[in-house]
């Protein structure tokens, strides 16, 4: 899709969203910060009615700001609890703009999702309880650089539109914006989209299209239907027609597609402008797709809008990454662990970084007020040192095991299968200890992170299962990639452990030139980096018989050396445990 076409779609999505923010859930916008995105946000502001709140949700919003809580200043002044609305309740009737949505913590995302589902904030905090209306839409600004970095799937599922502006240049942006559809918008917002009830064909067409595109969640066709209805209404029509459905499918369904509707179409539209060729006679499985013209219209609209790199991603999946349904969320590991999770309060003084819990302090002081108020006229609320309550945090210093697996030809020939088995055993062990795991493989020219740190071991296993083998051994690149990943893990406050599975037959240098001596020298250099960083490491030698160079490498890394004996993967599991404990 050309930049201009992408922008035109984005504007259309925005117009629909602005008409019914709560009904359509939101828009996820993938774009770096820049003039195009600014333009997009300005347009949103222009489309929203006067006075509609737009609240920016910072990445690490605490619960009291997010959901609401006690307003301490006001409480102390008034002498009775005064509630303070959270950001989500403040956004009622408007829009929440989520900055850096790809880095949002799972907990924050879950809170946001709950409010999106219920359209109210259920507040049970700080002695306050209540239900506050919160009908809003979300604009999630996704600055993710690659496919692994994107907002949590649970949130994406609840946003009708997924817009990608990365390919849009400023010259593609039509400065005229959109025409104001006028009073129709007001009607939509008032909740009276009086579009004729669906006779069933619209739902059928959208469901069929969703299924053909491999979209599991039922929210997608629901949103598409809603989008079609809003589109019809804004256009001043009383019924949804094929164009509305096509638009809805293009905007809602196409970005969610996980497969092409049919093998015959497994070719990205070469030229974005004309509609794709129509000669496909039976492109769809007749059992799942009703043979109806309406459904075809919907699918055609989708095909025209399918992202060009879908094929590339599909090829990757076919090439063995397996059924990685969602890539690991980079946010998981980046959750602020430095201060840990609050787990209650205790008596103590707010010094040395300890944080005072004001509410609990007040509660502790409250029962004594009658006694303390010796001069009854003073009326001052007296807090003494014994009353101070500080927040206890539980520092969860979890371990993240970074698996670096040598998938080169030499290793594959020998025992890639066994190495995989060993990793699986180790994964089971990680499950018991509730560790996180990350997985990277190196072969050919370099190393790839298959799985960023995640707690979902099932996902780790899936990405491992499809790991292909072959090619030369870029050992230095593998070690360096593992080191970089481990250091980024350490930055999040977790403890990284590197587990390197290789036969240590390095034969390709960093610059891609062959030759063992140079490759080995580079590998040793990279290994010294691991030792310098002071990381716990384990080297599992997967060669048929122990390789002296692997041992040397382990020594340079400061790693434990474990030759992998045939058919004894459990010994390996014990070795990792020992390395992690060290």
């Amino acid at each position: 899709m050309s930049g201009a076409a992408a922008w035109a779609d984005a504007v259309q999505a925005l117009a629909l969203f602005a008409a019914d923010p709560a009904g359509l859930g939101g828009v996820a916008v993938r774009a770096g910060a820049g003039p195009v995105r600014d333009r997009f946000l300005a347009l949103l502001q222009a489309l929203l009615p006067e006075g509609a709140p737009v609240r920016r949700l910072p990445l690490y919003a605490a619960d009291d700001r997010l959901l609401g809580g006690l307003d301490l200043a006001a409480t102390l002044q008034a002498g009775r609890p005064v509630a303070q609305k959270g950001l989500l309740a403040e956004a009622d009737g408007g829009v929440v703009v989520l900055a850096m949505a790809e880095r949002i913590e799972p907990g924050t995302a879950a809170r946001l999702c709950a409010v999106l589902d219920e359209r109210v904030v259920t507040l049970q905090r700080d002695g306050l309880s209540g239900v506050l209306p919160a009908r809003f839409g979300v604009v999630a600004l996704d600055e993710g650089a690659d496919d692994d970095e994107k907002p949590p799937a649970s949130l994406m599922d609840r946003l009708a539109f997924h817009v990608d502006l990365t390919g849009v240049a400023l010259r593609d942006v039509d400065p005229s914006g959109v025409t104001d559809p006028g009073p129709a918008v007001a009607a939509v917002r008032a909740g009276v989209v009086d579009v004729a009830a669906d006779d069933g064909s619209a739902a059928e067409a959208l469901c069929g299209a969703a299924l053909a595109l491999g979209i599991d969640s039922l929210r997608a066709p629901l949103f598409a239907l809603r989008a079609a209805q809003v589109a019809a209404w804004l256009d001043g029509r009383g019924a949804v027609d094929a164009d509305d459905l096509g638009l809805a499918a293009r905007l809602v369904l196409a970005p969610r597609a996980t497969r092409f509707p049919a093998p015959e179409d497994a070719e990205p539209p070469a030229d974005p402008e004309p509609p794709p060729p129509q000669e496909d006679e039976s492109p769809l499985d007749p059992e799942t797709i009703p043979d109806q013209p309406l459904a075809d219209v919907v699918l055609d609209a989708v095909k025209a809008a399918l992202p060009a790199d879908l094929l590339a991603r599909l090829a990757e999946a076919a090439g063995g990454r397996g059924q990685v349904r969602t890539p690991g969320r980079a946010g998981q590991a980046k959750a602020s662990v430095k201060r840990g999770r609050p787990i209650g309060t205790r008596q103590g003084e707010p010094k040395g970084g300890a944080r005072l819990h004001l509410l609990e302090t007040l509660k502790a002081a409250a029962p004594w007020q009658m006694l303390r108020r010796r001069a009854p006229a003073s009326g001052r609320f007296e807090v003494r040192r014994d009353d101070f309550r500080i927040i206890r945090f539980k520092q969860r210093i979890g371990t993240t095991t970074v698996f670096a697996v040598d998938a080169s030809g030499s290793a594959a020939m020998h025992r890639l299968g066994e190495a995989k088995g060993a990793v699986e055993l180790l994964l089971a062990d990680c499950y018991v200890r509730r560790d996180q795991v990350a997985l990277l493989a190196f072969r050919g020219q370099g190393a790839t992170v298959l799985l960023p740190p995640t707690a979902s071991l099932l996902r780790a296993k899936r990405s491992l299962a499809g790991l292909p083998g072959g090619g030369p051994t870029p050992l230095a690149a593998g070690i360096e990639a593992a080191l970089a990943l481990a250091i980024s893990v350490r930055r999040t406050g977790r403890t990284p452990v590197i587990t390197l599975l290789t036969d240590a037959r390095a034969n390709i240098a960093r610059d891609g030139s062959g030759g063992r001596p140079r490759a080995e020298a580079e590998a040793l250099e990279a290994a010294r980096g691991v030792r310098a960083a002071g990381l716990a490491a384990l080297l599992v030698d997967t060669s048929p018989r122990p390789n002296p160079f692997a041992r040397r490498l382990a020594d340079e890394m400061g790693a434990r050396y474990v030759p992998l004996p045939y058919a004894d993967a459990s010994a390996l599991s014990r070795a990792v445990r020992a390395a992690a404990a060290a």
Partner: protein
Amino acid sequence: MARPVFPFAAIVGQEDMKLAMLVAAVDRGIGGVLVFGDRGTGKSTTVRALAALLPPMKAIEGCRYHCDPALPDTWCMDCVAATGKRKTVMVPVPVVDLPLGATEDRVVGALDLERALTGSKVFEPGLLARANRGFLYIDEVNLLEDHLVDLLLDVAASGENVVEREGLSVRHPARFVLIGSGNPEEGELRPQLIDRFGVSVDVRTPGDLPTRIDVIRRRDTFERDPVAFVETWKKAQDKVRRRVIDARGRLASVEVADSALERAARLCMALGTDGLRGELTLIRAARAVAALDGDKAVGDAHLRRVAPMVLGHRLRRNPLDEAVASTRVTRAVEELFGA
């Protein structure tokens, strides 16, 4: 809230999840329901629908824990201490939401700050008090803070909430059915927590087109005019409610023959589930299903229907085993009972 709830009877498919809810509604002692599965499968919708389905219950008027007038053993301290005749009122069965971000003081109850600021020490009951005799629903249970989970497990097991904080010393009944839902992709649930649930169901997005269309259509009709939609489904809804009420009445008289007990024991042995809890729950759930079906005795058919949801999550876990546990159970059932 003014927004009507999507009727239980109108939920398309998801038979396992619905059955699990009904079983818990008939026999509260089943020990909680865990619903794990894909996004957008109507987990929350079903739980909320259950709230609207349940028939109202009798409670002592003015009691903050809505004690049951018929069961003095379970009364709270206030009700025990009260003298004179107390009125009985009909109240809806509480289905209490435990939202993420809830603070501990609101969950267990704490000093009433407003009154405390004026100098009196009064206990302000929390969500556990409100959920007494009802259901406590935790969406995204796998994301709940660990210290809250610990607390909930403790209370759910003992049926009593003990509050010792801020100079308060309060205990009150908190017998609730825990309903948890979540998505495994957001993170695994702690094994200790899984064990506490009596039944656990996996929900999946329906894959066949007609069902999916049905879901979309009903949802759309509901969103357009919730009131009219609820009215259309009133009859069907009443029928389900009637079924629950009848089943409750019948529950005690459903016969569990020795042969059924043996069947259950064999099944558990074949699957190697630890402990007796699986067997007990299996029998209880089968009995509830028999009661729901209007059958006089527990038979193989009932055991078969509940076995996956009762035993699936009790199997020795291999976290990397992608095969859904329930298929293992189904296989064992087929071997034992014949396909």
